[in-house]
């Protein structure tokens, strides 16, 4: 059997499994927005932990992260492990409070929460637009990577367009029918699959080096372990972006899906162990072992370390690994797809165009948006636009910088009023966009930091100089959070 046939067979088996999951998701899902977009807020700790980690880790973990470890060694490793230690902490800090408000007031999208707290429809629209701007290019990157990986893994037998088409059809179908249940259940399969594959690959790669790869590289290329090779502004911006990833719309919505606050806490614990010690360390071990096994790679060739290692040492295993990379990409893409659909349906279509839609109609519209976004994304990706990667990378930073300060107002700081929240949202988003798309990284500082810095200034000045929200509104939220979190008596 040829390697191409092996890749196709393993992928067909994998797709079959996701369709089975999609079928059960479809049978269990009711036609209500809460059930379709949030799985009826019933997720337990096992499913929530794995959907969090599967959604967080993308195809880049398999391709880009290994190569960056290869090129930058300890320096990138310290960056990756820092943000992977910190984002579970953010689940504690933000996630628990988001769940409390989401379950009490019935929020489905982040815009629901911001609009309700700040009593502002402008807030709803801008939050939704920024969320969509962040999600769509990010999704397209997963698809772009999937199409290219398929083409490479099958030696061009399945061309880029067909690989991308297969990926959108599979994801589009199980998301359309099964809703969020199908997405999170397939995330469990995909998350377990790629974590196990990463673990096995890292052990195998170390064995292939025939000793301790750290000792070998420390003697041959000690500069790899120089902790300052990854320049500080970039290092810091990576951490500030990915440590705050629970503020991205699809990640925020995951906190609304939990069965209880205790589930969020248990998931924070699981992710605190899995993300730095399984996802990060395994990627680093593969990168460092590759320095011994495949020396001298530079530039884009380092992104193909895993396929190159397998092509050299275990060609048939490559079929399984290709599917694991797809699993990482698909588990990110499906979550973003349903999140983008919920923003379009709930915050724009039903709110402003079809105001009389009942729960059933809203869910059907949500399903239609899943298909619409899927098709648009496919045709967009076919053009292989160069700016897509730029916009996609910038998208997450723009969204996190923009969402950060209004979220602090909702969850922590009662003094924050609508003017401070709205303008910090706009200023951070616009500055983060301009410093990437128009004036790239002024002074060598990445756009996320420019956005956060400008947003922070606007936020602080306007918080102290403009009116806070009415006291009753502050009490409704902050009084409630305090009463539950600190156990203070409700009067």
């Amino acid at each position, binding site marked *: 059997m040829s390697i191409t046939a092996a890749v196709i067979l393993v992928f067909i088996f994998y797709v079959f499994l996701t369709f089975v999951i999609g079928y059960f998701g479809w049978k269990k899902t009711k036609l209500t927005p809460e059930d379709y977009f949030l799985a009826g807020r019933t997720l337990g700790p096992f499913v929530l932990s794995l959907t969090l980690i599967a959604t967080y880790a993308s195809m880049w973990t398999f391709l880009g992260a290994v190569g960056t470890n290869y090129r930058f060694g300890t320096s990138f490793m310290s960056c990756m492990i820092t943000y992977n230690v910190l984002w579970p902490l953010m689940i504690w800090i933000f996630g628990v409070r988001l769940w409390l408000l989401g379950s009490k007031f019935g929020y489905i999208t982040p815009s629901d929460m911001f609009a309700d707290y700040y009593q502002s429809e402008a807030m709803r629209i801008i939050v939704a637009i920024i969320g969509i701007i962040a999600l769509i290019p990010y999704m397209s990157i997963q698809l772009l990577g999937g199409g290219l990986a398929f083409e490479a893994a099958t030696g061009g037998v399945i061309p880029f367009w067909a690989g991308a088409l297969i990926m959108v059809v599979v994801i589009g179908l199980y998301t359309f029918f099964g809703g969020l249940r199908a997405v999170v259940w397939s995330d469990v399969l995909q998350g377990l699959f790629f974590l196990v594959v990463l673990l096995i690959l890292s052990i195998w790669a170390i064995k292939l080096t025939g000793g301790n790869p750290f000792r070998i590289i420390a003697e041959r290329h000690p500069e790899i372990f120089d902790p300052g090779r990854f320049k500080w502004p970039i290092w810091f911006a990576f951490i500030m972006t990915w440590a705050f990833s629970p503020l991205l719309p699809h990640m925020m919505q995951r906190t609304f899906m939990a069965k209880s606050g205790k589930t969020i806490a248990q998931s924070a614990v699981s992710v605190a162990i899995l993300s730095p010690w399984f996802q990060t360390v395994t990627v680093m071990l593969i990168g460092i072992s590759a320095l011994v096994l495949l020396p001298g790679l530079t530039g884009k060739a380092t992104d193909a370390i895993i396929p190159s290692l397998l092509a050299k040492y275990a060609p048939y295993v490559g079929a399984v690994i290709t599917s694991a990379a797809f699993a990482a990409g698909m588990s990110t893409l499906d979550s973003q797809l349903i999140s983008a659909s919920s923003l379009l349906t709930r915050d724009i279509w039903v709110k402003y165009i079809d105001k009389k839609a009942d729960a059933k109609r809203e869910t059907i519209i949500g399903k239609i948006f899943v298909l619409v976004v899927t098709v648009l994304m496919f045709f967009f990706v076919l053009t292989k636009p160069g700016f897509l990667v730029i916009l996609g990378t910038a998208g997450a930073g723009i969204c996190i910088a923009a969402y950060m300060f209004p979220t602090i107002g909702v969850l922590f700081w009662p003094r924050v009023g609508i003017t401070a929240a709205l303008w910090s949202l706009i200023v951070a988003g616009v500055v983060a966009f301009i410093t990437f798309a128009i004036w790239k990284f002024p002074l060598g500082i990445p756009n996320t930091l420019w956005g956060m810095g400008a947003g922070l200034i606007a936020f602080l000045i306007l918080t102290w100089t403009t009116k806070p929200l009415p006291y009753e509104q502050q*009490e409704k939220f902050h009084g409630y959070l305090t009463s539950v979190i600190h156990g203070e008596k409700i009067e």
Partner: protein
Amino acid sequence: MSNEVYKIPNKPWWWPRSLKFKLVFIWMIVFFILMNLVNLRIIAKSVFPLVLGLPFSLFFVFLICLISTIVIVGIYFVWKDFLKRVE
């Protein structure tokens, strides 16, 4: 629920109230500062000696990340009364 009245306490929102959470807060700040100092080549910049088979800079990064992981996991056991309220 509509008749419930909640009072916002007059305490700084960013400063933890219990001693255990103050320690968690302080450690995470220390952790973040240490990681920055490593990247800026101010501390733990040498490759040798190897500790447990790892270059010293990498060993140091692993060590403080391990402590931070224990602290983050530890929050679960410190915040028991809250977990009972949201069970």
